[in-house]
């Protein structure tokens, strides 16, 4: 097992005396073994969290995480980092709030500062229909024991003094979740990687899965660009590429992949201390600790793996941002990028067994899975270790598409993240 530095104020001071020359690696550069008890495909936050909880809570330490690129190089490192649990249905509320509760202790648990900041999250309403939607959802959330408050436009203005309440789509109210906020996305991947590594998990980058070993309908391992790696159990957590992996294993998923873009402005002095999202005009915005405004655009209308995104989506998002916040009109945008998101029709994830025994998939988080990272990894680890679904994960099985028991979070998730 790896013996990591324990991070603290004292270790920081001690290393400062050394000009920070001898910090240990945060995780080993592991070489693949011939065989593992469990292989996790995909080194994003969800895959790394799964490996961590497998080792930490399920006693399964003979685990490898295989990542085709670099850790967090997928959607984990590309998202707008919004965390919340204000979903309509009981199943989603339970799953997402499980995650928020884990977020609340995560930096201490991992000994890694994931910069989770519960700065509050506003969801704006612009018309009668929106008001009814946040009213209904707000009460459902509250009834599920999750904090949720309805605000008047005047209360919104106190939180965001420079907002334009009287645009073409006036602000009529908002739903506030005070426990919502943001976290540092890279740190989540690195923190889980370091903690999993310390428990014996092999983290292997530049290792792309290109096929599965399947014998008598049971998975036996994965084919990779670094040879065959045997595994008794395999968990696929590859977000936008889940259909590609499902195809390798011989089945299809109820998922389509599209580009989703985000962009950041030049850094500003602190101006916005909460997250504000609007589904109706499609704008969501927050300010990072570096001072950049972080703005999310909509996803492109068509399937694509191009990881580029259409310019029209950005233009649309910025029009909405300027209508709501005219003071940003002369800001320059610094960077723009896209991730490939895996979208289901009901905007809820798939945490599921598959037609191949011992092969599990965790995907379909689409435009909004960053917030779920700890909870998703936690329940998925239990599914893999026990071979049966964790109670919080059970409703999210692929079976729901055959039974018609969809968990429709369109309003809570379709445009907001």
């Amino acid at each position: 097992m790896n013996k990591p530095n324990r991070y603290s104020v004292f270790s920081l001071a001690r290393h400062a005396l050394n000009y920070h020359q001898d910090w240990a690696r945060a995780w080993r550069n592991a070489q693949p073994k011939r065989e593992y008890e469990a292989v996790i495909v995909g080194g994003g936050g969800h895959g790394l969290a799964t490996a961590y909880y497998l080792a930490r809570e399920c006693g399964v330490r003979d685990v490898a995480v295989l990542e085709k690129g670099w850790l967090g190089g997928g959607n984990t490192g590309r998202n707008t980092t919004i965390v919340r649990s204000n979903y309509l249905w009981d199943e989603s509320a339970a799953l997402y709030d499980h995650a928020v509760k884990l977020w609340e202790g995560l930096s201490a648990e991992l000994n890694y500062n994931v910069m989770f900041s519960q700065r509050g999250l506003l969801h704006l309403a612009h018309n009668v229909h929106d008001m009814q939607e946040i009213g209904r959802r707000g009460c459902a959330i509250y009834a599920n024991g999750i904090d949720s408050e309805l605000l008047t436009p005047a209360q919104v203005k106190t939180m965001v003094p420079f907002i334009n309440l009287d645009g073409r789509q006036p602000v009529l109210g908002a739903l506030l979740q005070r426990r919502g906020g943001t976290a540092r996305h890279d740190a989540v991947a690195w923190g889980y990687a370091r903690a999993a590594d310390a428990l014996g998990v092999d983290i292997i980058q530049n290792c792309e899965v290109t096929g599965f070993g399947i014998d008598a309908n049971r998975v036996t391992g994965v084919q990779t660009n670094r040879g065959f790696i045997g595994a008794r159990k395999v968990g696929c957590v590859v977000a936008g590429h889940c259909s590609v992996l499902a195809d390798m294993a011989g089945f299809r998923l109820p998922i389509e992949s599209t580009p989703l873009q985000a962009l950041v402005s030049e850094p500003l002095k602190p101006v916005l201390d909460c997250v504000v999202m609007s589904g109706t005009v499609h704008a969501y915005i927050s300010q990072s600790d570096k001072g950049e405004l972080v703005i999310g655009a909509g996803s492109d209308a068509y399937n694509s793996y191009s990881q580029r995104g259409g310019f029209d989506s950005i233009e649309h998002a910025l029009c909405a941002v300027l209508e709501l916040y005219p003071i940003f009109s002369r800001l320059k945008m610094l960077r723009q990028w896209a991730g490939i998101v895996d979208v289901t029709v009901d905007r809820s994830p798939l945490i599921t067994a598959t037609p191949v025994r011992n092969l599990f998939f965790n995907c379909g988080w689409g435009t909004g899975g960053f917030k779920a990272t700890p909870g998703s990894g936690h329940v998925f680890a239990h599914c893999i270790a026990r071979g049966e679904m964790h109670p919080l994960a059970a409703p999210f099985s692929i079976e729901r598409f055959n039974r018609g028991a969809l968990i429709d979070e369109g309003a809570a998730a379709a445009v907001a993240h």
Partner: protein
Amino acid sequence: MLLIKCPWCGTRDMSEFSYHGEAHLLRPPAPAEVDDAQWGAYLFARKNPKGLHRERWMHAHGCRRWFNVLRDTRDDRIYATYRPGDSPPDVDAGDDNGENNGDNNPGNPT
């Protein structure tokens, strides 16, 4: 942003069109006779290929007719558009035959 050639009106900006997903899906001829899994697969399961994709578009702000597009989802290049009822043209998109979902493209995404 894509430029799309409507088979009736010619080449127009993508903003004139609406997208409607995978083309050539066959509704089971006798719905009452298929089981839940087959019906679920018809409604929801999709190829979602990384490679050639046959898909439906509609010229929403033009002639409002439906047609099919053959596009490579790796780089969004459109190889052909064709009318409903016509069969998709054969194209050579390099290393992908359109049925294979596998990631045959070793290069990094652009």
